[in-house]
């Protein structure tokens, strides 16, 4: 068959639609193309939306979607190329404005084009996997304008230059900046990041590297921080004005890195203005700034904390070891408290109560307070001072604050049992001499100690208070009996009955009391034992006081307030005029040391010398002779002759207390070992040591060597035994 013949027999496919004008598509597209031109030329007012929409609709309906779409791409590209060249031609500062103006026009035009081609967007685009009109317009703008090589470089340079100028203090057109960055974001976040954000961050990094170098050379630490803070705030503000909010963390990270992280050590250690300087001068504002800035950098706060801790430990160490400052315990403790107050204030105001800083502060105090083994004694003395006189006339709340502060120092002590020992002594003195200012304050402190250390710690202290109270009742009863039975002039006796064990044990040296006193004492003894059976009374003559009425040579009468020992000595001078030291010692049997002290107070203190010593000298020697001082005068009726009081402990006393404390610790350690072994049955040496330490650390820090000795002692007494196979393991023997 020939081709021509075949043609003759061709069967036409059945068609629903009549063949339309072959130029139809061409013509329709031309109308649309021209309309798009008009839109770009701001001439849209002559256009009919309905007509254009219908034309586009018909093209898609008649399967010319492809032609329509390709035509659109072409036309848009052509217009955008034109726009690119006008933008490029813009001179200097007008460049951005021209870009922005064209962008706004393009957007507006794109909206209208999308309206016309809506039907294509709805049907043709999804079926043929094409990019929708609006997105297409943005992509073309990106490719033909923003990334057009000559514009791309100039755009970036202009933007970076504007930012640089703003950083240098110039005022720039932020609205324009905002529009341009917004355009980049509209084109897709990757366009914004690649074409702007990345170079922007690099430029910022370079800028701040230079600037921080400059600042650090010429500014002190406080000024530098101020500048860094200002820069940081500026950048945050910049982001809020014309950048993507997501850029904030990135740009602040750059500033933090360049201005803080890379100069961190230098700033903190800066001579005459660094962290130590700020701490010494209480520069809360600078410290607060340093805290908030360094907090942004990893390792920043750690550095601040470390420097603060080492400074604190160093000053603390000086404070507690300087022998000059150890002279007055009260001042010593006051200094500690002042130091604590100072740092508390710094941490609350500048470091916004950061827990890690509080911990660092606590551990530092714990470290240096325990450097001085006398700290427990001094703290107790401080309390003693406050309760004797310091708190007179002070409101209840202030008392509480002082006590709370003391408790805070107490918490830092490792040897709490040593404190207890001293506290007991000082409390005993206060109670027996009725020197305490406020019973409430005393009790309040006991309650605090109780909550801190438990019932055991304070049971004896409370016992002391009970003793005082019952003694008062007993004396009332006794006085009633005595005044009824015998009204003759005998000395008035006031007795305080102290329970053995509650009170600090004293060398119970007995002296010979004068006969008058002895008689009254015997009366009391009979009275007391008649009301309380099965008890034994021992006289603690070393702790008493006496009021004597004395008449001197010219008839001047005085009431002398003296210690019991002094009273014993003075009573002799009722009968004789002079006595030698030896005679007095034999007659009274007062221990030599106390006797010497008593005589000193009676004979050597100016204005209170009721005795005369021969020869005259400060110290008492065994050959001295004492004479009643007829010529004694005083402007006061009542004369108090205090024994040369023990303020701080002397060296031997200190040793003694230490020894006592060590002795007391032994049973506590043993008890702890037994408690632990009773529950564990079998345990090795290291574990026992660590458990014992843990159990006892609220009271003191036991020495491992001492624990070892106690274990050995317990093995001897057959509470424990060593394991036969492993010598390091102990067994509990029930």
């Amino acid at each position: 068959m020939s081709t021509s013949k075949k043609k003759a027999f061709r069967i036409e496919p059945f068609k629903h639609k009549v063949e339309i004008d072959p130029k139809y598509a061409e013509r329709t597209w031309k109308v649309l193309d021209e309309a798009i031109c008009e839109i770009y030329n701001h001439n849209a007012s002559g256009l009919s939306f309905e007509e254009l929409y219908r034309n586009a609709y018909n093209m898609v309906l008649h399967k010319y979607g492809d032609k329509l779409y390709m035509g659109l791409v072409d036309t848009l590209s052509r217009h955008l190329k034109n726009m690119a060249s006008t933008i490029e031609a813009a001179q200097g500062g007008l460049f951005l404005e021209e870009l922005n103006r064209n962008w706004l026009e393009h957007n507006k035009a794109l909206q209208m084009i999308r309206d016309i081609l809506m039907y294509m967007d709805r049907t043709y685009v999804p079926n043929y996997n094409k990019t929708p009109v609006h997105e297409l317009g943005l992509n073309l703008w990106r490719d033909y304008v923003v990334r057009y090589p000559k514009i791309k470089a100039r755009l970036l340079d202009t933007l970076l230059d504007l930012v640089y100028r703003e950083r240098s203090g110039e005022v720039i057109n932020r609205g324009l900046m905002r529009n341009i960055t917004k355009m980049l974001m509209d084109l897709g976040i990757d366009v914004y990041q690649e074409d702007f954000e990345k170079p922007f961050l690099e430029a910022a990094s370079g800028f701040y590297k230079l600037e921080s170098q400059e600042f650090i050379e010429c500014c002190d630490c406080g000024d530098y921080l101020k500048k860094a803070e200002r820069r940081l705030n500026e950048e945050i503000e910049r982001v809020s004005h014309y950048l993507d909010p997501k850029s904030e963390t990135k740009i602040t990270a750059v500033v933090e890195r360049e201005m803080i992280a890379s100069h961190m050590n230098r700033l903190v250690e800066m001579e005459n203005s660094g962290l130590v300087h700020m701490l010494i001068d209480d520069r809360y504002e600078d410290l607060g700034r340093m805290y908030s800035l360094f907090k942004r950098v990893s390792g920043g706060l750690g550095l601040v904390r470390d420097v603060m801790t080492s400074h604190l430990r160093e000053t603390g160490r000086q404070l507690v070891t300087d022998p000059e400052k150890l002279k007055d315990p009260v001042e010593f403790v006051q200094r500690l408290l002042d130091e604590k107050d100072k740092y508390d204030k710094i941490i609350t105001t500048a470091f916004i109560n950061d827990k890690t800083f509080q911990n660092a502060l606590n551990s530092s105090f714990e470290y240096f307070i325990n450097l001085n083994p006398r700290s427990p004694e001094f703290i107790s003395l401080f309390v003693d001072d406050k309760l004797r006189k310091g708190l007179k006339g002070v409101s209840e709340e202030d008392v509480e604050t002082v006590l709370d502060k003391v408790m805070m120092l107490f918490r830092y002590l490792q040897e709490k049992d040593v404190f207890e020992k001293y506290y007991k002594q000082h409390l005993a003195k206060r109670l027996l001499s009725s020197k305490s200012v406020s019973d409430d304050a005393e009790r309040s402190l006991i309650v605090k100690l109780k909550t801190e250390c438990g019932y055991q710690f304070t049971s004896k202290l409370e016992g002391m208070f009970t003793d005082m109270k019952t003694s008062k009742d007993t004396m009332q009863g006794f006085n009633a009996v005595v005044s009824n039975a015998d009204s003759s002039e005998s000395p008035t006796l006031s007795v305080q009955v102290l329970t053995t064990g509650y009170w600090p044990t004293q060398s119970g040296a007995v002296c010979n009391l004068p006969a008058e006193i002895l008689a009254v004492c015997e009366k009391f003894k009979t009275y007391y034992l008649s009301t309380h059976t099965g008890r034994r009374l021992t006289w603690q003559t070393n702790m008493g006081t006496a009021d004597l009425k004395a008449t001197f040579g010219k008839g001047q009468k005085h009431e002398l307030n003296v210690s019991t020992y002094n009273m014993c000595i003075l009573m002799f001078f009722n009968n004789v005029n002079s006595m030698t030291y030896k005679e007095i010692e034999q007659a009274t049997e007062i221990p030599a040391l106390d006797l010497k002290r008593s005589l000193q107070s009676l004979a050597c203190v100016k204005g209170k010398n009721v005795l005369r010593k021969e020869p005259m000298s400060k110290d008492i020697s065994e050959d001295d002779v004492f004479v009643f001082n007829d010529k004694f005068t005083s402007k006061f009726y009542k004369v108090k002759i205090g024994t040369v009081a023990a303020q701080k402990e002397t060296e031997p006393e200190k040793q003694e207390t230490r020894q006592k404390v060590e002795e007391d610790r032994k049973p506590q350690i043993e008890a702890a070992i037994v408690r632990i072994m009773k529950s564990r049955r079998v345990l090795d040496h290291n574990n026992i040591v660590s458990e014992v330490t843990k159990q006892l650390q609220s009271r003191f820090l036991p020495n491992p060597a001492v624990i070892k000795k106690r274990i050995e002692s317990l093995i001897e007494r057959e509470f424990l035994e060593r394991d036969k196979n492993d010598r390091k393991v102990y067994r509990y023997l029930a």
Partner: protein
Amino acid sequence: MRMPGDIIRLNVGGKLFVTSRTTIENAGSDSMLSAMIGENWRRDCSAASITNEFFIDRNPAYFSVLLDLLRTGELHMPAGMSEKALYREALYYGILDHVRSAKWGMLDGNMLQCTNTVRGHATGDATAIRGAQDGGCCVAHGPMVHVYDWSMEAQIALTLDYVNVNDAGFLNPERVVICTCERGDKTGGMALFNVKRGRLEHKYEVCHGGQYKNCTAGALAINDVSLFASCRGRSNEYGIGCWDQVTGKLTHFLYEGPSWPLGVACKLQWLPHSNMLMVAALYPHSDDSFISFLDMRSNNIAWSWTDAEKPAIGDEKVVMDAVAMDECSTVCVVNQFDNLGFIDTRSNNQGVRWRDHYQPGKISEAEEHSYSKLAVWGSQLFCSKNDSVYVFCTPDLDAARCVQTAKLKKSEGGDISDIAVGGERLFVLHNEENVFDVWETPGSFSTANCF
């Protein structure tokens, strides 16, 4: 005060309509009507800006119906109006979605009406029907898949080179995924087709160690981000594959264990509530029935049930179809006697609780007996039996206590071979002559909520 620009005068094909700006704006910003009256096209000092009159060169009769739809949210067509033409006009104005959502309401088994019966095009028996998200559907028979859009307009028919179609599903109303048997050459497997253009757009590959494996794709399930299919290949590629919808790449492949078949599974169902995939391998694809829930993130079997190694007593013999009722923690099954049963998924390997009053032995005498099929929608269960669909409602999320509340029957087409739910519609495919029915809840005031 009403502004002069708030009254819109529309001259449609010579007939004047006057309406308010807000009514037009109901059409949505991406409609032709809104664009026309919008800011972009507001002209200065022209006649239209004073009179607010717009000319539209369309048929006023259809516009009147559509304007009424915009005003009231209801669709009322005068008798004799062509539905198809109305849809065309709606598409022109950009408000076709409004028409669709006004046509039928939320699926409720107790209120269903059969609104359409479509006669199939193919000669062979149809095997499966699947619903699309917008109410369209596709019917598979042999190597062919016929796709219908929501107006039941036949779209392009896909012919798959004589390989049998096992399952199909819609990724979106324009994209259908088809699972086919594998053949010697590189054909078969699973592929994505464009519904409007009939074009193959993507082939889902099973790839291991850089090597592509050829395999048969069985059942299919689709969730928001992934596609799942049971696969059996030539070189032991047995298991469940998972592909990403965006990239089209295999994200992971769960191989079946020695005693638990997955690759031959004939039903996959995604469970959005428990975030798991139900895989059911049933007779005749495997000798015994195996139903399991897979946790695809940790690649393990979270729950399983089988009737293997259990004495065959009465009803429990063969499970023919299974469907999970996710929120009821129940898998519903049906056996060859059309008897419904329920398995509790809160504990492993429970027995089946069969519904007693569902009498066995009532097998129809017809030679081509179709077994029951199941479909689930919320707490409603659909079960086909012979030529009817029974609707069950479950009280208090307890599927085993469900009650039959409706029976759907159309006389045409004979026994039912498959049912499916999609786009708030129930599709029922009949054995004879490839007829399928579309059941929907009549559109009513419920459609007004889109305004």
